[in-house]
């Protein structure tokens, strides 16, 4: 005989079992991720190839405009490769962040009709972006083979930087997802952030171009540490890794994630009322 579970619903009661519930619903999380991946490429002629084509064209354009025409320095590695290892993490961040931000209002129907820990929705959006990222990583593999660049032991640190970017995207995404429910203005801010971030983060250029005294401040953007980390891990570049920047990135991304989760948790109970 199974022990009957008792649930108490009360105003302002924080769920004691929230994290356990989150685990209980992990299958829903997987299903939502699976749905979004499935739906994204259904009815497209090229299907999953889009996950590769999009960053590929961006790399191409960056290489021509910034590499050839503007002749930006690339720390002694082929520019295409130099920019590729930055564009992939950037696009991962940008799509994870914007999908997570819009995920809650995009699933309004579910939110107002079914209970589950709402955190699942933005989390599964970030998962989808991670899968796309994994697919697009083949570009870097291809480019490295083409240029005959072999990754060293540092490549093993890559998961740490992926985690760093994931945490930043999730944290920022949670803030925006929750704010979006109440203030739809944030829907317009999201693409703006994603677009602007591409230029202020060291994607087309190396962060070594930033004057030393500004460098720590510049690193407040966690993507600076993330992208630098990617370059350091994969390329045998002449530039050493700027450690204070990476530390700063860990601080800001954890801060984003912790406050993001806290804010989301605090507001999620009213989602069904105002969405």
């Amino acid at each position, binding site marked *: 005989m199974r022990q009957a579970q008792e649930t108490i619903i009360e105003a302002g009661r924080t769920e004691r079992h929230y994290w356990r519930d989150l685990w209980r619903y992990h299958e829903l999380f997987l299903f939502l991720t699976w749905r979004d991946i499935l739906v994204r490429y*259904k009815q497209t002629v090229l299907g999953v190839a889009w996950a590769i084509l999009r960053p590929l064209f961006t790399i191409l354009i960056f290489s021509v405009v910034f590499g050839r025409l503007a002749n930006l320095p690339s720390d002694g590695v082929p520019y295409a490769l130099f920019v590729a290892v930055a564009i992939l993490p950037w696009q991962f961040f940008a799509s994870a962040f914007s999908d997570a931000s819009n995920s809650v209002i995009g699933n309004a129907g579910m939110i107002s009709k079914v209970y589950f820990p709402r955190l699942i929705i933005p989390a599964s959006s970030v998962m989808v972006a991670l899968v796309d990222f994994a697919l697009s990583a083949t570009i870097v593999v291809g480019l490295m083979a083409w240029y005959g660049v072999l990754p060293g032991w540092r490549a093993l640190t890559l998961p740490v930087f992926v985690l760093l970017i994931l945490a930043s995207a999730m944290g920022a995404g949670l803030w925006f997802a929750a704010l979006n429910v109440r203030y739809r203005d944030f829907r317009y801010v999201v693409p703006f952030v994603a677009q602007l971030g591409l230029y202020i983060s060291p994607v087309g250029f190396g962060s070594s171009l930033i004057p030393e005294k500004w460098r720590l401040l510049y690193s407040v953007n966690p993507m600076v540490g993330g992208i630098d980390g990617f370059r350091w891990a994969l390329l045998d570049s002449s530039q050493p890794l700027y450690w204070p920047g990476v530390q700063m990135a860990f601080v800001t991304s954890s801060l984003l994630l912790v406050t993001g989760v806290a804010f989301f948790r605090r507001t999620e109970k009213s989602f069904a009322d105002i969405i």
Partner: protein
Amino acid sequence: MTIAIRVEGVSKRYVLQHQQRERYTTFRDSFASAARRLGKRAIGKATHDSVTEEEFWALRDMDFKIDQGERVGIIGRNGAGKSTLLKILSHITEPTEGRITITGKVASLLEVGTGFHPELTGRENIFLNGAILGMARAEIQRKFDEIVDFAGVERFLDTPVKRYSSGMYVRLAFAVGANLDPEILIVDEVLAVGDAEFQRKCMGKMEEVGSSGRTVLFVSHNLPTVLRLCPRTLLLEGGRLIGSGESSRIIQTYLAAKALGTADRHGLSDVRRIGGMGERFRFTGCSVLNAQGMATNRLLFGEPISIRLDTVANEDIDEVSVAVGFDNYAEVRVATVLSEESGVLYDYSAKQTREITTRPQHFVLKPGRYFVTLGARRQGQPLDQLSQALSFDVDSVPWQEVQPPSETSGIVQVFAEWVGTDG
């Protein structure tokens, strides 16, 4: 007998913001109203705020208990708080006050096909929807055949549901929900889907669920269904629990309460409005007129109907469009007539009153009870609104020689021409 659901002093408050067309706010609005408040405080005078906030209690001091294995119906008019109650019990939204203790695993079916994605196939949607409703994958796999069989969509399992007919879609959606296996099942009006054959199947399923010792909470407008399925019924009105007991008794109370407000000339001036409705323009009275132009609450079948409205404007206001809606006993909208659609708009000067009569043409209501809903607006902005302001009955006695049809012929009365060409 153990208690499955115990509800103690539960209330739910919503804050309504008026003068806003959209349900969500934008940051600009909040910013603007904050600035305005600040400005006012600085000037030191209280003016009427253009963005007013009004509290609205969707539920008030709800207290009840439901024993394990009980099947309980919940009835009440639209806006009585039924859906809010279910949403709180389902954990979707939290109460403002009070406490609910639930013993056992709950599953709610507030809508069929939540999370269904049109691009996904039937098979994929079964798994997705099952997961959304809280089923584990193994559980869905176990019940998969039963679900498919119940819905009768074997041949289309690998077709995207966007290619399904609406009937198939709804059957599949309901089938997933119907095979939930909780200790407590909360169902909102989802049985009103599909064709008669399928509805019978659904009813059978619900009875099966109920007789297997599970607790069922069932909201419906369909009173016969409630009567058949649930021995006990709760009656909600204006967010309060006003009755609880044996279903037949409660349903009678409900019908009697609904029948109130059938005075032949119904005064509407003092009916409470929310959201600034009726401030600039107001319906002050309404009556149903029979073929002789006499106010009544009883019409014969096939008798031409007129609705007379008494109106008043509090300020100069032009281009007022008036609408009258007819809802049947199940609160399904049967028809709406809009003056605007007939190219009629009314201009008012301040304090002007006007009597407006509308005569819907070729409009034959089947025997039964109907509710009249009134609305007035100007350029799409609502001025006054009264849901189910009064009710009237259409008798089964014919006005002319045409006999009323059987109850099963649908909700609309249609007279058709028939042509047969001999071959």
